[in-house]
Structure formats: C-alpha cells, structure tokens
C-alpha cells in the first residue's frame, strides 16, 4: 500500500529515467543486477522450459485481453453485461418506452385539438367572409351581380319627381329586389330622394333623366310588379314619361357606397 502511495506521490517522475540517483533506493540488492537480469532474459533468445511456459501463459493472457477489448469495443456494452444489469436495462427501456408512448399520445391529442380548432377557426372565418359579403350587398359596400331587370325611365318633359322614383323603389323592394342602383347611385336602406332642378337628388347626388334602374332580384317577380295596372309604369306614362323594363340574366350593380361606422350604436350581442 505504501508502494502505491509512493508511486502516486512521485507521479510523473516515473516517466523520465533518472540516470544516477541510487542513493534514494534503500534496497539491499545492488540495483544493477535486476536490469542485467532483465536484459539477459530479453536479448539472447533462449528456448528454455521456463521461457516456453511463460510464453504459453502470456499467449493466453494476450488472447484473453484482445478478445475482451474486441468484444467491449465492437459489440454493444450489453454483450458482457451481467444478468441483473440486463434486467435493469430492460426495465429502464420499458419505462422509457412507456413514457415516450405517453408523451406521443399527449402530443397527438394536442395535434388533433389544434387541427380541430384551426378547422373551426377556418370555418368561422369563411362564414364571416360570407356574412360580410351578404351584409355588404345590403349596405351597398360591395358590388353585386345576378339576374334582374333594367328599368329605364325617359323623362323628356321633366315630369318625374322624387315621389315617383320613391314609389318605384318601394315597388321594387316589395317585389323582392336585393340590390338597386339608380344611374350611378346605389340605393340602400337609408337612401332618400329629393327634387332638384332638372333632375332628382338621390342621397344628395343629382341624377338626370333618363333614369336607369339596375335591379337584382327575381325577374319574373320584378317585371309584373312594375307592369300591373295602376302600377309604376302606368302611372309614369300618365305623366308622359316612358318606362321600359328589360329582363336580363346578368345585371351588375357596381355603384358603391362607403361603409359607415356607427359612432354611438354598438352591437349588444357580445
């Protein structure tokens, strides 16, 4: 034991070879004899029984050493492991697998949740866009197209007044008109008509004859609604204006109105 401590105490001094420091060795034997014996044993190779036996044993040692090093390095560490170690490793692997399975399940659940919620969000967004389009058509902020009629009122005498135009619009609305524009002005819920010299004011914008109504709705409903006896067309003809109604499969109402944000009213639904 003291040898070990001495050895570790001297440390790296072992590496270099002190040439002449025999005073420190308190050996009883003359130190040179050991080296001489070693050199004598090493160099002139003699085939003696002792040499052969030692060679055999060292061969076995080298063999075992090489095999062990080999099996430790090129195989996995499991090869030389003891049974209880293997059982422990197996247990650890099992619990690890279980943990990872759990985690996988959790993550998959999360993924499903996220996918569902993103689908729902997408659906809600679509519905919102659709709703916005519908409301935009009603509010006149987006252009609309569809089947409908074109009503052209020519007024050479200037006899058509705003109340007639209002009656026409009411009639059209009653017949199911969904989007109306008069010349270049969109008619919406709060549109008002006024008399102007040489024309009519629609929401303050002056429009002049001929008044062209572009109306989207069911043509089979709109046209009879205008043409009924005592209806709009007859009344206008009494005023010596001419009204012509033309059905069309595609009417484009493209006059727009700026969206107006209410200053005071807020939705009470949320």
């Amino acid at each position, binding site marked *: *034991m003291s*040898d*070990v401590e*001495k*050895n570790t105490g001297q440390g790296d*001094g*072992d590496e270099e*070879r*002190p040439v002449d*420091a*025999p005073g*420190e*060795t308190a*050996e009883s*034997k003359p*130190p*040179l*004899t*050991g*080296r001489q*014996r*070693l050199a004598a*044993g*090493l*160099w*002139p*190779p*003699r*085939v003696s*029984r*002792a*040499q*052969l*036996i*030692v*060679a*055999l*044993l*060292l*061969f*076995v*040692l*080298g*063999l*075992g*050493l*090489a*095999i*062990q090093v*080999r*099996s430790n390095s090129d195989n996995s560490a499991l*090869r*030389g492991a*003891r*049974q*209880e*170690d293997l059982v422990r490793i197996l247990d650890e692997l099992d619990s690890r697998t279980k943990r990872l399975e759990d985690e996988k399940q959790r993550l998959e659940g999360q993924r499903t949740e996220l996918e569902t919620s993103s689908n729902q969000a997408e659906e809600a967004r679509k519905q919102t866009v659709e709703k916005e389009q519908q409301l935009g058509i009603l509010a006149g902020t987006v252009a609309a197209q569809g089947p409908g009629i074109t009503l052209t009122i020519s007024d050479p005498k200037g006899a058509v007044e705003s109340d007639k135009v209002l009656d026409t619009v009411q009639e059209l609305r009653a017949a199911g008109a969904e989007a109306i524009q008069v010349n270049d002005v969109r008619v919406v819920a709060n549109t008002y008509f006024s008399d102007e010299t040489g024309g009519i004011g629609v929401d303050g914008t002056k429009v002049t004859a001929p008044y062209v109504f572009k109306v989207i709705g069911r043509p089979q409903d709109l046209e009879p609604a205008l043409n009924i006896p005592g209806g709009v067309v007859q009344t206008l003809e009494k005023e010596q204006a001419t009204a012509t109604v033309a059905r069309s499969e595609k009417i484009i109402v493209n006059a727009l109105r700026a969206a107006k944000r209410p200053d005071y009213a807020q939705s009470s639904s949320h």
Partner: protein
Amino acid sequence: MIAVLGLVVGVVVGLFVRPEVPAVVEPYLPIAVVAALDAVFGGLRAMLDGIFVDKVFVVSFLSNVVVAALIVFLGDKLGVGAQLSTGVVVVLGIRIFSNAAAIRRHVFRA
C-alpha cells in the same frame, strides 16, 4: 524474449482470428484477464529479484485466474456480482501497482 513474443502473438491472434468465446466463460473473462495481469507483474518482479521459478509462476497464474473467476461466479450466485468483481479489480489493481513499483525500482533505480 520468447515470453514477450508469446504475448504479442496472443494479442494478434485474438484481434484477427476473433475466436468465439463460450457464453459461460464470457462474464469471467475480464476479471480473469486482470488476475493474469497481476500474476504476470508478480512474475516480472520475481525475475528482477532473481527469485523467479517457472513452476511458481504457472501455479500463481492459474490459481489467480481460477480464484478470480470463482469469486465472480460466487458473487453472481449471491447477487452481489458487480460489487464483488469491483472489489477483486481493486485488490488486483493495488497488487499490480505495488509490483509495478518494485519493478520500477529495479529498472529505473528510482
């Protein structure tokens, strides 16, 4: 010289032939190798001391290997195999160190 040659040949054969070790022996191989190393160092020291006897070397070599393997085997059966083999390695390591120190004194005179 022939002994050193034997060691070298053993290592080379073990590396290149790659013999298959029976599974029964396999757990005892590392401890047996350490025990044999201890015997070899002991033999080297004896040779430097001038008291080397080949018969003693053979017996110590074989008995070292067998006892070490036996201890590990017993430890495995008792369920303390890992601890016992650690103990064997520690003891053999101490012996190897002390032998190496004696050899060092002979060779380097320090």
